[in-house]
């Protein structure tokens, strides 16, 4: 059984086109770049037979948006919904390794723990992840700081690595294997030389990214839990919150942030539970009935966002909840840079010691 295949670009385009018959297919599309700025990519639903756009780095949207929505109905009570919603079969192209890493957090929240979120689980089952190597990076990209590589080795169904006039296609799961079998006319087993070429391209990009990150002096992955604990009372939080406008953008755009709020709604005789994404940067996030609020001030809320990522998840899942995608840095109107917050803590803790 082969694990890596080759597909010429025009063949792969035909394959992508044919998938439309059985799946909702989402692919990256380039957004018109303002001159002098990085090109941005965004997911669109593939409607025509346009050739696949290969995004050199991650798209704007977090992958979680396919699995939990900004606001959606999650239950109807007390009379069951006439026909339970069918989850459509979906293929997503353009996923990067940072997204796959971030998605581990979403899976941990919704598929594990006390009880499983059935709708999430069904969506997950019905979705195929077709990821791709990065062949470039954005200035905010810093995956390597979290030991996340710019190409994936797990968590995908198929992974594409651009090579010459086509793509190497690696199988990462049974679902991916099934897809290759079903559309085998588009794929030929990869040659050793092609796999070596992929390795070379990957190493080249890692080296370029390392060079980009070196002058940034980012904190070490293993130090973040210590930074959270020893830096709890430092003035870093107060300093960095000054420009926070409490928009919640950092949370909503984050691949790992998962908080939500349940609300109730009535339409005719039918009652519904709605689930909406929530942000720990909102003033009422932790407020209890009667008015007590353990996260009254922005300083506390900014710190809460960081301790969740770098203390709670290290304790509960063994990994920090940051994949280095830099989305929160780009989204923040107050220019709060997660990398700088961590560096400031590290600097001050060293001075204290």
């Amino acid at each position: 059984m082969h694990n890596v295949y080759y597909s010429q670009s025009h063949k792969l385009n035909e394959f992508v086109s044919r998938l439309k018959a059985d799946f909702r297919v989402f692919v990256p599309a380039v957004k018109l770049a303002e001159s002098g700025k990085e090109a941005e990519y965004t997911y669109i639903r593939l409607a025509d037979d346009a050739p696949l756009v290969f995004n050199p780095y991650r798209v704007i949207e977090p992958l979680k948006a396919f699995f939990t929505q900004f606001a959606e109905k999650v239950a109807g009570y007390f009379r069951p919904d006439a026909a339970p919603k069918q989850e459509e079969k979906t293929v997503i192209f353009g996923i990067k390794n940072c997204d796959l890493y971030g998605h581990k957090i979403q899976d941990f929240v919704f598929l594990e723990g006390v009880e499983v979120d059935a709708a999430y689980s069904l969506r997950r089952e019905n979705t195929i992840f077709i990821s791709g190597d990065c062949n470039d990076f954005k200035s905010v990209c810093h995956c390597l700081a979290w030991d996340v590589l710019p190409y994936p080795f797990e968590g995908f169904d198929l992974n594409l690595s651009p090579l010459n006039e086509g793509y190497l296609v690696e199988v990462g799961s049974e679902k991916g294997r099934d897809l290759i079998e079903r559309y085998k006319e588009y794929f030929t087993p990869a040659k050793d030389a092609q796999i070596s070429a992929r390795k070379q391209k990957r190493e080249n990009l890692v080296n370029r990214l390392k060079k980009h990150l070196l002058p940034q002096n980012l904190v070490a992955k293993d130090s973040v839990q210590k930074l959270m604990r020893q830096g709890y009372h430092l003035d870093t939080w107060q300093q960095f919150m000054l420009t926070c406008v409490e928009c919640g953008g950092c949370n909503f755009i984050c691949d790992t942030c998962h908080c939500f709020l349940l609300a109730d709604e009535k339409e005719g005789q039918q009652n519904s539970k709605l689930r909406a994404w929530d942000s720990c940067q909102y003033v009422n996030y932790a407020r209890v009935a009667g008015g007590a609020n353990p996260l009254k001030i922005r300083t506390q809320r900014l710190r809460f966002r960081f301790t969740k990522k770098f203390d709670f998840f290290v304790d509960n899942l063994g990994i920090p909840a940051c994949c280095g995608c830099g989305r929160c840095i780009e989204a923040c109107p107050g220019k709060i840079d997660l990398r700088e917050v961590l560096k400031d803590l590290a600097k001050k803790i060293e001075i204290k010691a």
Partner: protein
Amino acid sequence: MMKNIYSPIEAAIEDIITETQNIKTFVIRPKEEFSFRTGQFIELTLPGIGEAPFTPSSDPNVKEKIDVTIMNVGKVTQRVHNAAKNTAVGIRGPYGKGYPLEQFAGRDILIVGGGVGLAPLRSLLFSLFADIDKYNKVVLCYGARTPGDIIYKEAIPQWSKIRKVEVRITVDVGEPGWNGHVGLVTTILKDLPVDLKNAKAIVCGPPIMMKFVNLKLLDLGFAPADIYLSMEKNMSCGLGKCGHCRLGRYYTCKDGPVFTYEQIKDIPEIWE
């Protein structure tokens, strides 16, 4: 077909007991089988309006209905207070770990309650009373703001007649006709008839009260692992998924809501 974790089961308000000016006990009859362990909580839905977490105040051994004692303090509680008998409500749960009764066996049990915090403790008391032979003794110290704020007024005198049970009550502010103790609940935590080496303390009340009771108990010589605290947090899902109730490395909903002080003593700002 997997269960939908967000969907409440239907129940009806069967009876409403007025406890104080702003506290009522709602007797709720679920239309499906429902049971809980003492100290676990439920999410109570007012259809189309909202949901809030409450720890039942009734005996967990009674299966066909549950009591929920609710103070009128917020959006949902106000609507619940205005609800009439037979109103349809929803229940999700039970959630959380509840009181570890097995750790209480053979011990002197000190229960300290403040205000409406006596509600979850009443459920615990019923559980202890049902197996009173398993415990050395049960001492209840309860504080309310004024005599008018005391809940379960008729039941409390009955409890003190139970073998091995002692009840102490205080109010922060007395009034004409009140012959009992006046002072914060910490003032009745002295000369306690418990053997500290073999005692467990269970505390439930407003955060400020718990903070000072906890200090007092530590002062008296209770070990942090022998003090059980009910932590109040904003809880939405009850399942450890929505994030709101995080307390350090824990979620109050799934890892609590009862924690020993030992578990949470190193987490900053727990009483905020």
